[in-house]
C-alpha cells in the first residue's frame, strides 16, 4: 500500500517537474516573442517620428513659399484681391 502511494507520488513528481521545465521554456519563448514585438513597436514609433519630421521639413513655410513662387508662379494674397464674407451668425455675435 505504502509502496503504491510512494510510486504514485514519484511518478507525479517527475511529471510535474517535466511540466515545470516545459512551462519555463514556453514562458521564456513567449517573453522573447513579446520583447521582439516591443522592439518592433519602438522601431515603428521611431520611424513614425522620423517620417513626421520629414513631412514637416517638406512643408515648412520657407519651402512652400519658394515652390509657390518659383514653380507655380503664385503671389501672396492682398486685401485688394480678396473677397471678405461675413457669416450672419458671426456678424450677430460680433454686434453683441
Amino acid at each position, binding site marked *: 500500500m505504502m509502496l503504491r502511494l510512494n510510486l504514485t507520488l514519484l511518478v507525479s513528481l517527475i511529471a510535474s517537474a517535466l511540466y515545470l521545465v516545459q512551462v519555463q521554456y514556453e*514562458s*521564456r519563448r513567449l*517573453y*522573447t516573442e513579446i*520583447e*521582439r514585438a516591443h522592439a518592433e513597436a519602438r522601431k515603428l514609433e*521611431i520611424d513614425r*517620428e*522620423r517620417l*513626421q*519630421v520629414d513631412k*514637416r*521639413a517638406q512643408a*515648412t*513655410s*520657407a519651402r512652400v*513659399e519658394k515652390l509657390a513662387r518659383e514653380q507655380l508662379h503664385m503671389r*501672396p*494674397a*492682398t*486685401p*485688394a484681391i*480678396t473677397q*471678405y464674407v*461675413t457669416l450672419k451668425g458671426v456678424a450677430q455675435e460680433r454686434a453683441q
Partner: protein
Amino acid sequence: MSGRVVAYSSSPLLASRTPVWRSKFIVAGIALGFVALAGRAAWVQVFGNEFYRKQGEVRFARTLELPANRGRIFDRNGLLLATSVPVPSIWAIPEDVEQGRDKAKLAQLAKLLQLPLPELMKKLEEDERNFVWIKRQVDESTARQVAALDIKGIYQRKEYRRQYPEGEAAAHVVGFTSIEDHGQEGVELAFDKALAGKPGSRRVIKDRLGRIVEDVREQVPPLDGKDLQLSIDSKVQFFAYQQLRDAVVANKAKAGSVVVLDVHTGEVLALANYPSYSPSNRQNLTGAQLRNRALTDSFEPGSTMKPFAVSLALEKGLVKPDTLIPTAPGRITLAGSTISDSHAHGDLTVTQVIQKSSNVGTVRVAMQLQPREMWELYTQVGFGQRPQVPFPGTVSGKLRAWKTWRPIEQATMSYGYGVATSLFQLARAYTVFARDGELVPVTLLKTDQAAPGIRVLRPEIAQEMREMLHLVTLSGGTAPKAQTMGYSVGGKTGTAHKQEGRGYAEHKYRGVFVGIAPIDQPRIVVAVMIDEPSAGRYFGGDVAAPVFSATVQQTLRMLGVQPDMNVKPQIVVQAVEESI
C-alpha cells in the same frame, strides 16, 4: 596464438582469497567521496551561496537603460519646431580592431565618414580605453554602408538627435541642444528641465543568443519629457524673418530684429533676428549669429520713446492733443546743451509733435513733468525691468533712478536718449497704447485666454495717442511706408545715433519702428529694429517701416483679421525727415 584456453569459471584467480581491507578501503573511499560532495554542496548552497548567485547573475543578467524621449516643441498650431529622432553613431573597441588586416577597410571607413585617415587611426591608437566614439550622429545611409563593411571592433548605437524643421527662421526662439541632449540656447535651454525627462531602467535575463527571456525585477519606466507648445506661429515667424532678412541685406545693415506680439493674449507670435544660423549645422558659428538681439541687446530707442512722455503729459492734463507748442527755431538750449530738430517747424500741436517727431516739441512738453512721474511711467511700462520671459540672457535695459536725473537728462530721456531698452521691452511697452492703457504680460507659451492687463494710462489717453500714432503713418508723418493695404496702422519711428565708447558715432544709426495694427481695434504690436543700415537710407521710417508694413500685412491676413479700410491703390506720399 598459442597456449591453453582456460574457462572463466575455472580461473584460479577467482579462487584466490582477497584480503578484507581492500573492500573496506574501497567502501571508505567512496564514502569519503560522498562526504566531499556533500561538503561542497553545502558550501555552494549555504555558505558561499551569495557569491555564486552573483557570479551567475553577472553572466546572464543585464541592466538595460530605457532612454526617455526629450519633449517635443510645437508652435501654436501644433506644427513641429523641434523633436528628437534616434540616429546611428559609430563607436569602436580599439583593442579589437585589427589594423594590419583591415587596413583597406579602415581607409574606406574614413572616406565614408569624411574623416581624415590619420585622425581615425589616432582614435584607434588609444589602446587603454575600450570605448571610443568614431563619429557621432551620422545619417542612416552612411550607417548602413559602414555596417556593410563589417569591420571587427567597429560598432553602432542609436543616439537621439534634435531635428529643427523650421531651421534658421526660428533658431533664436527654439535654440538647440548639445550632442548629449542638454539644452544650450533658447527655449531648449529655458525649459530644459521640463523637456528632458528621466530615463528608466530594467533588469533582465538574457539567453545565449542575447534575447531577453525574463525580467528579474519590476521595470522602472522612463519618464518622457513634457511637450511644449509655444505661442510662436511658425508662418508669422517665417514671414517676419524673411522680411527682416531682406531688409537687412538690402540696407547693408549689420543686423536686425523683429518682434510680433498678440495684443489680446500677450503671446509672442514671432521673434526673429538676423543674422541667424541653421540649428542642425552649427559649425563655425559666430557670436553675432547666435545672439538673440531682440532680448539680449539693449539700445537707446530714440524717438520711439516720445509717445510715453507725451501721453503722460496728456494724462496729467498738462497739454491737450491740439495744444500749440512752439518749436521754432528748431533748437532749444537747456543747461548749456542744445537740442535740435532736423527741420525747423514753427508752432506745432502736440499731435504734430508726435507725427513729425519733433525733439524740441517733445522736450517742451516733457519738461512740464516731474522726473519722478516720468520715471514711474517708464518703470510701469517695463523699461529698466527684466521682461518676465524665461529666456537665457534677457536684459533689463537701463533706466536710472529719478533722483539722479539732471534736467538735461530728463529732456533727452523724453526722446529716447540716456535710457536703454531691448526691442522686446519696447514692443511690450507699446501694448499700453494698443490695449487702451493696459500693459499686457507677455508669454512665450500658448494660452487661449485674454491676459489681464495692468492699467497704466486712462483709456481715452491711449486712444488719443493711437490717433497720433496713426497720423505718423499718413501723409505728413515720418513713416508713410508703414502703411499696409486694407489695414489701418499706427506707430512711431525712431532713428538713433549709435553709442560708441563714450560718445555717439557720427554715421552709425539704428532705425526702429514700433507700431500697432489695426489702429481702431488693435490686434498686434510689431517692433522692428535695423542695426547700422549703410546703404544710404537710415531713417526708421525708411528702413524699419517697410518691414513693419509687410509683417503686419501677412500676420493679420493669417490671423484672419478683416481689413478695416477700403482697399484702393495706395500712393506713397512724400515723407518728412524725422529728427535724430
